[in-house]
Each structure stands twice: as C-alpha cells, then as structure tokens.
C-alpha cells in the first residue's frame, strides 16, 4: 500500500495516461417546502425548528412527494436533452448514519426520472475553442440529510471529535442528482472540461430558476471521479473526490488527482477505489474512506410512495417553459454585442456571462458590463481565489459606478478603488466614494492651485510647453494627478494647464 504523496507533473502524466472523468452534481432545489413533507426550507433557521414527524423519520411517519420537485426535475432533464421516464419509482438506499433520520434515504435507483441526455461545453485552447459533448447518464430525485457539527476535537472535523451534534432542518430538502456518463477523450483539457461542465450546468439551472446553485452555499455540490489508464487500455480504477466547493476547485481537483494517480501507476502501484477529501488551501486531496468494501445499500422500491408517471402532455407543457437553450442564447448575445468568439469565450470561462447579462438588464451599456466583469473583477477574483459571483459586487453597483463615471465624478482608477471597497464590504458605491474621499476633483480653482504648484516645481517643463513641446505637459499632469491622489480628471488638468500657459492644446 502506498502512502506516498508523490505526484507526477501534469503534462508528464498526460504523456503516459488518458484520463476518464465522471462528475456527479447535486442541486438543492429552491422549493418552498421539503421533498416529502411541508416543512419550510428557508436557509438559516434556528436548529431543529424546521422539522416534522416525516423529515425526522419518527415512527409511523410517511412521505408525500412535492409536485414542484417533480416538475423542476423534469425541466432540468429536458434542459439537459434527457428522455423523461414514462413510469418510474423512488427507492430506498439503506445505510446507517446519524444525519439520516430513517437510516435510509429515499432516492431513485434503477429508474431515474430523466436519463440519456447531454450538455455541450466549450473550452478555450491555444488552438482555439474546442467543444465537448458531456453525456448525461441520469437526473434523479432524492432527499438531503441533516447537518452534523463535531464537538470536542481540534479541527471541528470528524476525526478526533468527542461527539457530534445533529440539526435536521436540512433533512428532506429536495436534492436532484445529475450524473454524467464517463467522459473520455479530454486529455490535458480534463480539468478545464470538468470546470466548464459544472459552470455550464450551473448557468443552466439558474436560467431555469430551479435553484440558487451557489457552490459556496452548498446548493450546488460536485463530486469528481477520475481514473487513468495507458492509452488503449481498459479504464483504470477511479477515485471519488468530495468537498469540492467551487468551480476553481473542480478544475484543481481533477488536475491534482491526475498528477497523484499518475505517480501511483508509474511506480507500479495500484490506485485504490476510495473517497478522497479535497482541501481548498493546498489544492490537493487526502484519503478518506476506502471504498474497497463497497457499502451494500440494499436498494428496493419505496413502498410508501407510488410511481411517478408524468404524462407526455405534461412533459411537453414543461418543455415549452424552458428558456432559450444556452447555445442559441450565446449565439444571440455574441451577435448582439458584436464580440469576437475569443472575447466571448473569455467571458464564459470567467463564469461571467450571466453576470454580464444581469448587469445589462440593470441598465448598463454592454461594453462597460463586459469590461468590468471580464477585466478588473476577474483579475481581483483570480487574485483572491474567489468566484466572480461571490465577490459581493452586484449589477447595481456597476450601474452606479458607470453613472458616476459618466458625470465625471469618478475616473477609471478611482472606480477600481470603489470596487475594492465594495468587495471589502464597506458599503454602497456612494458611501464608499464619500468615506474614502474618492470623488474626482472638479473644482477648477483647486486644480489650478495644484497646477501652479507643479509648475513652480518644474519651471523648465513650463518653458518647454510654452516653447511648443506640448507633450511635455504630461509631466505636469502627472504631478497634479499624484498630488490629488488620482482624483483629478487628467484631460481637464491638461486643458487647464495649457490655458494657464496660454498655449493651444
């Protein structure tokens, strides 16, 4: 058994091995009530105040299916180009765990509601965009578990804890599981394909309005399965990595697992079928529970529920409610915005498309919306290892900044400082401009004072300008900008300066 943490560098790993990926995502539906009972689902309630005999699994309790959950699942399946089952059942997945009130989970086993679909994703490469069709095995309904907190240990995690505490508020929340078929042929693009798939899935779900799909809040969860094998060989043993809580982590988890498994295989070792735990801070995963002894879930059809048999009429009604398919929408936006394929793909890769759309909907010019989201804000997000939509910047913030820019109260540089403030949680755009004193100095007399001071410091420059070398004005303008901490409008300073010197600009 190998306990080494060796890895083989990514590029090298891919020279020897082909990766096969599998992605399992869970989407928490935004329904008003739980999957099998009427308990409320609002986030953040006091522990154990959103429970009832059904979701607590009290003796004698019985489940009743939430119609909206079925409807949402069908819409999700249709959006993923799946077939919708004519007849399917729930099944019990039996295992013991303290967050499981009944010690079985009501799920679907060999009869998922939706199956055999696909999602096309595009990945930017050095040779241009490449499209991958990720095939979807199934989309099915199940219920979430309660939440455990671990007490008494050093880390707050399970290992080393003295005991645990359970809150069943989230037990029974509707969860929709989406499982891909094995994804082959991605090669070195595997991490990007994985990330693109989850991003695309997320945007699709948001567009359907079925869930908030926020990875950092747990309403979109992703387990990453990776296996490696020499080209042409049968597929290798796969590992499963959990605790992948952001789009970036999806990419990193695939990347690091390829490196790790390559090292194991290259040294003649055997990859163990196991569940691994991803660590945000290191970008690596550690070994969790070995799945060699696969748990026997003893699935059987749930006898307390009757089959789900959506009529074809209902399915077509729901199909008509689907928003425009992403590819069609993207083509339309690209044309509307007059953007190059490359620039458009950059937006998508940054996870910015939806945000740009929302910003435009808020009333911001599309070029400005794009500029901010794919420019400065993406830069900041990458620096801090955050997702764009968890920065805390809203479309309305951008709208306000653009308004201030248009009226000359802010310039570009100051605008960036405003965004810094928004991200730091200092308040609204206007509050930050005031508290940080970021307004552009528009008072001419103040500017002239600064200009005179700069001229006094650099008398030779003044002579040059008067002598016809207007470009030399830049040095004075620069000095004034510095003196006003960038809070002057450079063009205005220049024109005032030239006027001061009696020179035509």
């Amino acid at each position: 058994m190998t306990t080494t943490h060796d890895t083989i560098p990514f590029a090298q790993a891919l020279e020897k091995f082909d990766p096969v990926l599998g992605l399992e995502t869970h989407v928490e539906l935004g329904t008003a009530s739980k999957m099998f009972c009427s308990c409320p689902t609002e986030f953040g309630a006091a522990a154990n105040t959103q429970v009832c005999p059904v979701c607590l699994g009290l003796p004698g309790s019985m489940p009743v299916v939430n119609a909206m959950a079925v409807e949402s699942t069908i819409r999700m399946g249709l959006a993923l180009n799946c077939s919708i089952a004519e007849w399917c059942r729930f099944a019990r997945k039996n295992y013991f765990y303290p967050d499981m009130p009944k010690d079985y989970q009501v799920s679907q086993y060999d009869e998922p509601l939706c199956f055999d679909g696909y999602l096309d994703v595009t990945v930017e490469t050095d040779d241009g965009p490449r499209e991958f069709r990720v095939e979807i095995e199934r989309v099915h309904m199940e219920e979430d578990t309660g939440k455990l907190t671990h007490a008494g240990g050093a880390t707050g995690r399970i290992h080393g804890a003295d005991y645990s505490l359970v809150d069943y508020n989230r037990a029974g929340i509707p969860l929709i599981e989406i499982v891909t078929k094995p994804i082959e042929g991605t090669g070195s693009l595997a991490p990007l394909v994985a990330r693109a798939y989850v991003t695309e899935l997320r945007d699709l779900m948001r567009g359907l309005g079925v869930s908030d799909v926020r990875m950092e809040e747990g309403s979109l969860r992703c387990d990453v399965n990776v296996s490696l094998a020499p080209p042409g060989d049968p597929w290798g043993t796969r590992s499963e990595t959990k605790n992948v809580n952001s789009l970036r982590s999806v990419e990193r988890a695939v990347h690091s697992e390829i490196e790790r498994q390559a090292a194991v295989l290259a040294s003649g070792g055997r990859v163990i079928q196991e569940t691994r735990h991803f660590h945000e801070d290191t970008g690596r995963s550690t070994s969790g529970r070995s799945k060699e002894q696969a748990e026997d879930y003893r699935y059987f059809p749930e006898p307390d529920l009757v089959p789900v048999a959506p009529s074809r009429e209902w399915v077509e009604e729901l199909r008509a409610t689907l928003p425009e398919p992403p590819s069609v929408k993207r083509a339309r936006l690209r044309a509307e915005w007059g953007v190059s394929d490359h620039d458009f793909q950059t937006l998508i890769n940054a996870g910015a498309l939806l945000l740009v759309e929302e910003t435009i909907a808020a009333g911001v010019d599309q070029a400005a919306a794009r500029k901010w989201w794919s420019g400065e804000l993406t830069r900041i997000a990458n620096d801090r290892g955050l997702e764009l939509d968890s920065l805390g910047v809203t479309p309305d913030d951008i709208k306000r900044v653009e308004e201030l820019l248009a009226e000359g109260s802010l310039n570009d540089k100051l605008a960036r400082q405003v965004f810094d403030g928004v991200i730091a949680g200092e308040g609204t755009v206007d509050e930050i401009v005031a508290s940080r004193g970021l307004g552009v100095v528009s008072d001419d007399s103040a500017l002239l004072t600064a200009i005179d001071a700069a001229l006094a410091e650099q008398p030779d420059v003044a002579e040059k300008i008067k002598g016809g070398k207007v470009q030399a004005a830049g040095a004075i303008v620069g000095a004034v900008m510095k003196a006003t901490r960038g809070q002057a409008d450079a063009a205005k300073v220049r024109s005032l300066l030239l006027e001061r010197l009696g020179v035509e600009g």
Partner: protein
Amino acid sequence: MATMDGDLVRQDASVLAQAMVEGEVSSEEITRAHLDRIASVDDRVHAFLHVLSDDAISSAREVDRRRAAGERLGPLAGVPLALKDVLTMTGVPTTCGSRVLEGWRPPYDSTVVERLRSADIVILGKTNMDEFAMGSSTEHSAYGPTHNPWDLERIPGGSGGGSAAALAAFEAPLAIGTDTGGSIRQPAAVTGTVGVKPTYGGVSRYGLVALASSLDQPGPCARTVMDTALLHAVIAGHDPRDSTSIRAEVPDIVGAARAADVRGMRIGLVRELGGEGYQAGVRQRFEESVAILTDLGAEVVEVSCPNFEYALAAYYLILPSEASSNLARFDGMRYGLREGDDGSRSVEEVMALTREAGFGAEVKRRIMIGTYALSSGYYDAYYGSAQKVRTLITRDFTAAFEDVDVLVSPTAPTTAFKIGDKVDDPLAMYLNDIATIPVNLAGNAAMSLPIGLAPEDGLPVGLQIMAPPMADDRLYRVGGALEAALVDHWGHQLIEEAPQL
C-alpha cells in the same frame, strides 16, 4: 335495537350508543364501568400496556357535556375503545410491544386516532402486541404475553392479541388492530370476536409504526359484525398524508351490515385453503357455516387459487425485507432507548448495542432475514422473485372474483394453542398465518367472524371472508348474514359462552 340488560360492559357498541342517545346512560358511566372491568380482570388477561384512566374519563365527560348541550354527535360518540400500541397518540406511551420504544411518547397523532377523536370515541388505553407486530401469539411482546380470556393458559392470537383479548374479556366493546399477515383476523378467530383487514389503502397508515409497508393495514375489531362496520366507517377514507391511501369513496359498509343478505350471491371455497391438515373441529365448524350460507340463499362453488401455495414463502421474503428497512430508524439517536453511550464508544457501536438490547429475538431474526434478502447479489432471487409471486396471487384472486362475489376459508388452522407451545418453533408459528397471508399480498379485504367452538377443546373457531379490493362492503353483507343465522341458532352471541373472569 336491543335494549340494554345486564352489565354495561357486556353490551354491543351500537346498543351503548343508542342508550346514550336516549339518555339512559352517560359516556362517563360507561367509561368508568369499562375501567373498572379492566382493573378487575386485566391482571390476568394482560391485554393493556397502558390504561388512560384520567384522559378517558375527561373525554367521556366532554362527550356527555356536548350531548347535553344539544350537539348532534356521531353514531359511536362516547363509546370506549382499546387501541393497539402500534398507532401513535400524542403524549401517550407507544411501545409497539418493544423495549426500544419504552417510554416514548409521540409528539403527533396517527390519522386513525384523529378520526377516532373526531368521532368522539373514548380511548381507554393501548393494547399489547407481538413486538413490532411480528408474531401470531403476542408471546413476543417485550412486556409479557396476553392471555386468551377463553382459557388464560392459551394465546389470544397475534400480533394484535391485546385488542382481541380486550374485546373477549369485555374490557372494551371496540378495538383497533393492524393486520400485516393476519394480525387482526387470526386473534379474532381464536378469541371468538370479529376483525376486519380493510382493502390496502382503505385506512390511513399515517402514524402506524410500519412493519411491512406494502402489507400493513389498520382495521376495526369488535364483538359483532355491525359494531365492526360502524367502526370501519369511522376510520376509513382517503388521507393526503398517506400516499398509498385510496382516493375512492368508502363503500356503504354499515348499509351492507344492515342488509346482511346473501341471496343470489356466489361464494367461493378456496381449494388450497380447504383445511387439509387443519384441526378437525375447525374444519367441522367451517363446513357447517358453509352449509348455512347455502341455506341462506348463496350459491357455493369451489375455486382454485393454485399460487396460494407459494404465499407463505413469498411473505417470508417480503415482510422481513421491508421490516428490516422500516426498523432501521430505531438506532438510539433521536428517541427511544439508547444503550452503551459511555462517552468513549463510537456511534456505530452505540447503535448496534442499542438495537441488540432493545429488540427481541423474533425481531432480530426477521431483520437478519430481511437484510439478507435485500443484499446485493440476492435481491433478484429473493425479494424480487417474491414480488412476482404477489402478481400471481393477485391474478388468482382476480380470476376467482370474476366467478364469485366473495371467497371463504377457515381463518386459522387451529384453535388457540397453549402459551409456550410454538414460541421456539418459528416455522410452526408461521403456519398460523397460512390462510390469512394471501389477502395481504394481494391487498384486498378480509374479515374473520366467530362460527362456533371446536368440539374437541371448546375453543372459538373463525371463518374468513375475502372480498375484492374496494369491495369491503361485501364482507359485511356476508358476515352479517352468517352471524345473524348463527346467533339465531345459538340463541345468543358466541362470546356469551366465554368463561366468567
């Protein structure tokens, strides 16, 4: 309507109800009389696990008050009832005959209890049962067996022996049981009382602690067919909290019990349940009753249900499988017994120790069998195949009911056996259910009613009537007719012959 004569506790529910309407007696008097009876005999019968003396009296008083104020009350208002300890009742101990739930007081009412309360029925207490309804003798209760009032050394049947014994001992005129493989009908047969398993989905299972979800049904029990019908009408009907609950209207069972007329009906004798190997006295009384039905104007024919032979085998794969899953929740984490939590043990250990300490031998046996039958590699051959036998049995019933209106058989192969006789021989115990199981597998309705005493031991014998799904009223039509003829013949109800306690 018969007028009351003698003891309040020896009256039919319908007679008591009428007497209250006419102002002859109050619910409180009736309730007190029954509580006194319980206090007097239950030390020997042990039908009750929990008696709700104070609650029952205050409920009774409330009914009396409302009646006196001129409110129109339902047909069973103010009548007392015994409730099998497997249905939840807010704030009242519900043990299911098990140590694992000792002391547990549910925070919610089962639908059955809600309906009983809405009908102003007075609940006297919770009755004894085989642990988690697994058994045919009530010997597997963690709280000691119940004794058959006909002979205290004998079993009262199971799993609902407590409810049946309470009726037979005149501790209550009405009772609620639950039936998964005969647990209402077989106790009725061996105690000389009436019990009905409604069509699956006819009575809500919300609040019924599940044994085998696809087989369980709560049902009415009483000493007469009419009383049973009145109770059936109270508890039956669609419940949106039970997804398997039937949406159709409840048929007019009280009307059918009143009509009690079999003229022109076709009645089928099931060849495979014809009584080969059954006790002689059981067969004799059965044949006599069949003759009576013919005299009453029914046409009796023999039908064959060849797949019934496989019913027991299918049942003993399906029930433990579903039960093993239903009983998983008893792990010591959220309610009930927790054993072995000394601060050092892991949750896995504490769960296992709790279940080992909390469950009796029969429950553990069936959990083990069920876990095995659902295991990977075995599902298709075990649980999966057993579900196919269900299809075959359903087809047999469907074919039979195209030819006849109801089917009949003896309810159980023997009269009440002695406590201790079969408790160590599970296979022998399982054979008690041989006639009752097919109905649970197919989901249709069945009744057991008393048809006499076996000559060799003087113990009650029951006849089972089986009706198509949703045709529960036919049970009462046929049962009512047969009962009337028998009572006419005997000059009294059979239960009057039970020894005085």
